[in-house]
C-alpha cells in the first residue's frame, strides 16, 4: 500500500506539444482517486507516466517515498487494468491470470492457490479453461482485474476499465470494483471520461482539461460548487443549463437577464462579488434538478413551453423553451406534459455565476490548480 505523488509533472511530446502541464497531486494511501476529463485531456498520459509506459518530461513521480521516474514498469509494483482488457489471446483464462506470477518464477503450487483464490473473488472459477475470444465483455474485464489483483501490488491503475461494456454490465462492474477496492484497501487511480462513473465510485475526483487540472474534490464538492464553466458543464446528468446574459439592477435588486430569462440573485456571497464586477456580461449555470416545472404559475415562476420530454421512471426530464433559451428541468414522475404545452418553471436559489472571460466561478477566483 502506498501513496502516489505527482510533483510538478509535465509531459511534452516532440518538444512542443503539451499533454500534461504542471501536475501536482497526491493520491493518499488507500484512496480511490479518479482522473476525469474528455479525451485528450491528459488523464491517460498521467496514468501511463505512473505505470512507466510513458516517459516523464519534467518533474517527479513518487510511489510511497520512492521516486520512480527511472524505474521500468516491472520494477514499480503496480498493476494495471486496460480499456480494451489487454488479455493474451493465445492463453486461457487461467494462464492469463497466472502470467504475472509465472514470469516471476513463482512455484506452480503457489500459482494454483493464488489463481484459485482470485478467480473466486471475481467469480471466474467456472471458466478458467476458456480462451478470451470465448468470453463476453464483462468476463474479459473480470479476467483483466483478476490478473491485476493476483499480484497483490501496491497500486492499482485503472484505465477506462468499463467504458466498453454495455449499461447493465457497467453498473454491475462499478459495484464490483468499488467493493474490491473497499475490501482490499489498495490505493487506486482510476481514469475515466464518464462523469457518472467517477462521481459514483471515487473518493476524490481530479477534473482535467487540455492537460491542466481544473478542480480537485469530492463528488459533492464538484456537484455543488464547480470551479469553472468546464467543470460545471462536464459534471452532472442531466448536464447543467448554461445561459449567457447580463446583470441588471431592478428595484434595488440584482437580477440576471438573458434573452427570455430573468432571475434575481439571492446568495449574499455572490451578490457581494457580482456587485464589484465592471463587465455586466455574465454566464449563469443552474442544474436541471434545481429547475422545477409546474403547471400553474407562482409568484416567482417563469413561463416556458415544453419542447421535449423524457420519462425516467421515478423522475422526468423536461426540455423547455424559455424565450430563445432551451433549458432542462427535472420533474417528479407524475408530471406528464404534452409537447408544446405552456408551463411554468420555478428556479431554486442555487445559481452559479461564471466570469464571461476567464470562465471561472466568480466565487472561486481564477487560481489554477485548486487542491
Amino acid at each position: 500500500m502506498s501513496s502516489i505523488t505527482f510533483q510538478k509533472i509535465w509531459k511534452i511530446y516532440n518538444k512542443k506539444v503539451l499533454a500534461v502541464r504542471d501536475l501536482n497531486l497526491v493520491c493518499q494511501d488507500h484512496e480511490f482517486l479518479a482522473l476525469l476529463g474528455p479525451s485528450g485531456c491528459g488523464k491517460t498520459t498521467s496514468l501511463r507516466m505512473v505505470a512507466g509506459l510513458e516517459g516523464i518530461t519534467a518533474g517527479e513521480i513518487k510511489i510511497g517515498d520512492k521516486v520512480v521516474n527511472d524505474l521500468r514498469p516491472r520494477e514499480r509494483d503496480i498493476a494495471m487494468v486496460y480499456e480494451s482488457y489487454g488479455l493474451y489471446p493465445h492463453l486461457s483464462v487461467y494462464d492469463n491470470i497466472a502470467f504475472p506470477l509465472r514470469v516471476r518464477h513463482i512455484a506452480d503450487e503457489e500459482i494454483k492457490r493464488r489463481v484459485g483464490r482470485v478467480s473466486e473473488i471475481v467469480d471466474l472459477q467456472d471458466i478458467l479453461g476458456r480462451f478470451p475470444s470465448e468470453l463476453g465483455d464483462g468476463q474479459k474485464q473480470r479476467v483483466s482485474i483478476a490478473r491485476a489483483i493476483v499480484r497483490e501490488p501496491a497500486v492499482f491503475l485503472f484505465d477506462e476499465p468499463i467504458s466498453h461494456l454495455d449499461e447493465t454490465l457497467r453498473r454491475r462492474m462499478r459495484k464490483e470494483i468499488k467493493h474490491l477496492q473497499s475490501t482490499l484497501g489498495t490505493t487506486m487511480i482510476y481514469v475515466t471520461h464518464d462523469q457518472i462513473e467517477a462521481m459514483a465510485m471515487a473518493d476524490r475526483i481530479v477534473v482535467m482539461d487540455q492537460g491542466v487540472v481544473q478542480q480537485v474534490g469530492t463528488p459533492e464538492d464538484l456537484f455543488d460548487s464547480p470551479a469553472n464553466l468546464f467543470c460545471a458543464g462536464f459534471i452532472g446528468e442531466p448536464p447543467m443549463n448554461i445561459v449567457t446574459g447580463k446583470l441588471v439592477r431592478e428595484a434595488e435588486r440584482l437580477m440576471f437577464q438573458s434573452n427570455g430569462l430573468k432571475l434575481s440573485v439571492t446568495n449574499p456571497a455572490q451578490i457581494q462579488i457580482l456587485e464589484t464586477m465592471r463587465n455586466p456580461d455574465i454566464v449563469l449555470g443552474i442544474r436541471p434538478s434545481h429547475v422545477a416545472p409546474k403547471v400553474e404559475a407562482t409568484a416567482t415562476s417563469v413561463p416556458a413551453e415544453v419542447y421535449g420530454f423524457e420519462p425516467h421512471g421515478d423522475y422526468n426530464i423536461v426540455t423547455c423553451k424559455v424565450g430563445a433559451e432551451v433549458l432542462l428541468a427535472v420533474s417528479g414522475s407524475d408530471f406528464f406534459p404534452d409537447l408544446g404545452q405552456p408551463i411554468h418553471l420555478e428556479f431554486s436559489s442555487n445559481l452559479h455565476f461564471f466570469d464571461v472571460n476567464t470562465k471561472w466561478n466568480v466565487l472561486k477566483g481564477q487560481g489554477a490548480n485548486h487542491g
Partner: protein
Amino acid sequence: MTTFMKRLQANVPTLLALPSIILVMMIAIYPILYAFYTSMTDQLLNQSKSNFIWFGNYVNIFTSRVFWHAVGVSVKYVALAVGIEMLLGFGLALLMNGALRGRSLFRILILLPLMLPPATGAMMWASLLDPSLGWVNYALLQIGIHAPAWLSDSGTALYSVVGIDVYHFTPFVALILLAGLQSIPRLQYEVAEVDGANAWQVFRLVTLPQLMPTIFLVLLFRLVLCINGYDVINVATKGGPGDVTTTLSFQASVTGYRNMLLGQAGAYSIFMFFVVLFISKKLFNRVTRSWI
C-alpha cells in the same frame, strides 16, 4: 418484375462468376486432367498416337536413378533455401520491428529483390559471380580468398543457386513476418511489461505464440513456391554442371521437352502435385489461429 428478371436476379452470383469459371476450366482444369491422363500413357511430344499403359510411367520413374537424384536435389535445395530464408527473414523482421528511424526506407530497399524477375536476378548474379570478370571473386581476392567458379563448379553450384533463391525470397519472409509482428497490438507488450515480464519472456510468451500462424503461412508459401521453382535454375545452371542442380521441377521439363517423354513428364508433375497438396493440407490447418 417479370419472372425472367427475377430468376436472373436470384442467380446473380453465379452469373458473375461464370466467365472466370469457364476460363479456369480451359487453362487449368483441362490441362490437369490431361496431365493425369497422359501420365498413364506412353505419349511422346512429337507424336499424336499413344497407348494406355496404366501406371507404367510411375513404375518407371520410381525405379529410376534420375528421379531419386532429382528428389534428393530438390529436398536439399528446398530445405537449405527455405531454412535460411526463414531464419534470416525472421531476424530482419525482428530488427525492423523495434523503434527504428528510416524503417520505410529499409522496407523499400529490402523489398527490391523480391520484385525482380527471378530469371533476370539469376542473370545479374551470374555476372556478379562470374569467375573471370565478376566483382565478387575480385573482392574476395582483395582480402586473400581464391574463390571457386561458383555456378559452374560442381562443389558450389547447388549452394550458389540456393544463395540466389535466398537473395530473392528472404524479403518475402521478412516483410510478412514484420507485418505479423506489427499486428500484435502494442498494448500486449505494455501489459506484459507491467505484469513483470523481461524482454526474453515477452518474446517467448507473448510474441512467438501469436506469430506462429503467420510463420506457418510464410512457410507454406515458401515451401510450395520453392518446390515449384524453375526460373533460377534454368537460367543460372541449366541443372548443371552435370546433374548437380537438377531439381524435380527441372527434371520434369527435361523429360517432357528435351526427351519428349510426355507421359513420364506427366508422372513427374502429378507426383509433385501430390507433394504440394500434402504440404498445403498439413500447413493450412496451422495457419488458422487455434485460440479463436
